[in-house]
C-alpha cells in the first residue's frame, strides 16, 4: 500500500501541463500499489492551483502557501517535510529545469534512489521499474529502483494530462521553512530577445542541425530556404555556436513550432528538440543515420548525406 506524492509545477501564475501529466502517472502507479495519490503544490496562488489539480484519482492535495515563484530551497524543505508527514514511498516530479533544481537534493537529503527523465513506470510490491533512454535516445533501458522513498522525475508529454473532475481533500500544509537555510534568491525573469523572424509563423521550416558541420556550409541551407521560399530554423548547437540567432532555435528552450511541413536536416531528434516540433503536420528527416531518434517521429525520411540530397533538392526548384 505504497502512497505516492506528486509535486505540481507552475510558473508566472500558470500551472504547467506536466503537473496534470504527473497526476496521470501518479494515478497509474497508485492503482498498482493500492496506495493513495497525494499531490502537492507549493508557492503562488495555491488555492487556484489546487482547484485545477483536483482531477479524478487524486486523494489529497496539499498546499504550501509560502512565497510566489519557485525557489529551490523552499521546495526542497517543503517536499522533504511532506514526504515525512505522508510517509510517501514514491515522489514524482517533472523532469523540467526546475524539477532538476530541487528533486536531486530531496533524494540526497533522504539518501534514497533518484531516477530522472523517466518515460515509463511500473511497480510490483517490491520493486519500481523505470523506463528511460540513453545515448541521446538511441536505446531504451529498464532500471530497477531499490529502496523507498524513491524520487522519480518524468519526461514531459509522455503521459496524457489527467482529465475528469476529482473529489480530493484540499489540505493546507504548514511547512516550517527555515529562512536561514535559504541561500538563493530569484530576482526576476528575462525573455530571450524576439528578433526579426518568428519561426512559429512559418508554414514550411527548413531546419538545420549539427550535421551541417561548418558555419560556411549554412549557405547551402539558406539557398534551399530561398528556393523553397521557406523559413530557416535550427537545433540548439547551431545557435550555441553563434551561427544563427537565438530566435531560430526550435525546442524546449527555444520556440515551439507547428508548421505544415518541418524538414529536419542533420538533426538527431534529441528529446529537447522534439519538444519544439513534434506538433508539425508533416515531419521530413534527412539524416545519414537510419537509427537517429528523429526517425521515430518522421513521416518521411531520406537516409542519406545532406550534402548530396540538399543540392539535388535545390535543383528541383530552380
Amino acid at each position, binding site marked *: 500500500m505504497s502512497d505516492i506524492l506528486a509535486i505540481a509545477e507552475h510558473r508566472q501564475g500558470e500551472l504547467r501541463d506536466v503537473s496534470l501529466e504527473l497526476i496521470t502517472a501518479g494515478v497509474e502507479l497508485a492503482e498498482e500499489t493500492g496506495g493513495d495519490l497525494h499531490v502537492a503544490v507549493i508557492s503562488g496562488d495555491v488555492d487556484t492551483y489546487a482547484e485545477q489539480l483536483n482531477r479524478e484519482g487524486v486523494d489529497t492535495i496539499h498546499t504550501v502557501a509560502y512565497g510566489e515563484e*519557485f525557489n529551490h530551497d523552499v521546495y526542497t524543505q517543503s517536499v522533504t517535510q511532506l514526504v515525512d508527514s505522508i510517509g510517501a514511498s514514491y515522489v514524482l516530479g517533472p523532469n523540467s529545469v526546475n524539477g532538476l*533544481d530541487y528533486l536531486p537534493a530531496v533524494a540526497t537529503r533522504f539518501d534514497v534512489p533518484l531516477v530522472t527523465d523517466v518515460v515509463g513506470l511500473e511497480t510490483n510490491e517490491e520493486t519500481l521499474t523505470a523506463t528511460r*533512454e540513453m*545515448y541521446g535516445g538511441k536505446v531504451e*533501458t529498464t532500471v530497477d529502483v531499490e529502496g523507498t522513498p524513491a524520487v522519480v522525475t518524468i519526461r514531459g508529454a509522455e503521459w496524457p494530462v489527467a482529465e475528469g473532475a476529482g473529489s480530493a481533500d484540499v489540505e493546507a500544509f504548514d511547512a516550517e521553512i527555515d529562512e536561514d537555510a535559504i541561500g538563493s534568491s530569484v530576482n526576476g525573469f528575462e525573455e*530571450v530577445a524576439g528578433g526579426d523572424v518568428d519561426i512559429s509563423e512559418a508554414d514550411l521550416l527548413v531546419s538545420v542541425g549539427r550535421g551541417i558541420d561548418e558555419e560556411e556550409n549554412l549557405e547551402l541551407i539558406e539557398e534551399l530556404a530561398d528556393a523553397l521560399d521557406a523559413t530557416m530554423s535550427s537545433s*540548439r548547437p547551431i545557435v550555441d555556436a553563434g551561427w544563427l540567432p537565438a530566435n531560430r532555435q526550435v525546442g524546449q528552450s527555444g520556440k515551439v513550432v507547428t508548421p505544415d511541413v518541418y524538414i529536419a536536416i542533420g538533426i538527431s531528434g534529441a528529446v529537447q528538440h522534439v519538444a519544439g516540433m513534434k506538433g508539425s503536420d508533416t515531419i521530413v528527416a534527412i539524416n545519414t543515420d537510419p537509427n537517429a531518434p528523429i526517425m521515430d517521429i*518522421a*513521416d*518521411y525520411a531520406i537516409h542519406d548525406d545532406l550534402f548530396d540530397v540538399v543540392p539535388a533538392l535545390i535543383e528541383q526548384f530552380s
Partner: protein
Amino acid sequence: MKVLVPVKEVVTVDDAFEIDGTAIDERYLSADLNEWDDYAIEEAVQLQEDGVVDEVVTVTIGDEDTEQTIRQALAKGADRAIRVWDDALEDVDLLDVGAKVAILEAVVGAEEPDLVLTGVQSGDDSFGATGVALAEAVGTQWAAVVNQLELENGADVASVHRELEGGLEELTDIDLPAVLSIQTGINEPRYASLRGIRMAQRKELDHQTLADLGVEGDAVAGELELTSMYEPESESDTTVFEGSADDTAAQLAELLREKGVAQ
C-alpha cells in the same frame, strides 16, 4: 578562489550498432569529452583569466583510458586533474547519481573548492542531476542549468541566469560556495592550442582509489540496476524515400508540392 570541474568522458554510439545484454557492444562505441563539461571547463578557465579564480582542478571518474580526455581539459587550461578509479568500479554497469555523488563528495571534502562547475547533463546516461545532488551532499548552495554567470573578485554571491523552458531565463543570486550546472551556449569553448597540449603533458594528473578518498565500496554499488536495453520501437510509420540523391530529392519535391508548401 578555487574551482572544481567534474569532467566526464562519455561514450558515443555509431550509427549502426548492436546491443549485447544490457550494454552496447564495445565495437560500436567511441569516447569523447562530455559536451556540457566542455562549457564548464571554459567557464572556469575564463574566470581564471579574469583574475577571479586562482586554481582550476578537474575530477574524473574513469579508468586509465580516460586520461586522454582529461589531458584535453588540461590542455584547455585546467591546472591539474584528479582521476578516481578503483577495481570496485569495474563491475558497476550503471553508475547512478548517488554513486557519483559519494565519490565527488569525498573529492570536494579534500579539495574544498569555492565553486564547483558541472555540466547540465552527460550525453550518455543523461541523468542531469549530479550537480544538484552533490551540492546537497556537501551542504552548499546550487543552481541548475546556468547559461550566464557573473562573479566578482572575492564575492560571496554569484549572479546567474538559469535557462528555463520556452526562452525564459530566471535571474538568481546564489550564496557561495556553490555547485552550478553549466548549460551549452554559455560561452564558446576553446580548442586547445599546441602550446596548451604540450603543457598539459606536464600537468599533475593524480590517480586516487576509493580507499584513498575514504569511500566505502558499497557506496558506489548504486541503487539502480540496469535490467534491459533495447532499441525503441518506432511510433510513426515512416515512408522512406529510396534511391540516389536525385531520386529522393525528386520524391521530396513532389511531396512538398502536394502539400502546397512549395512551388
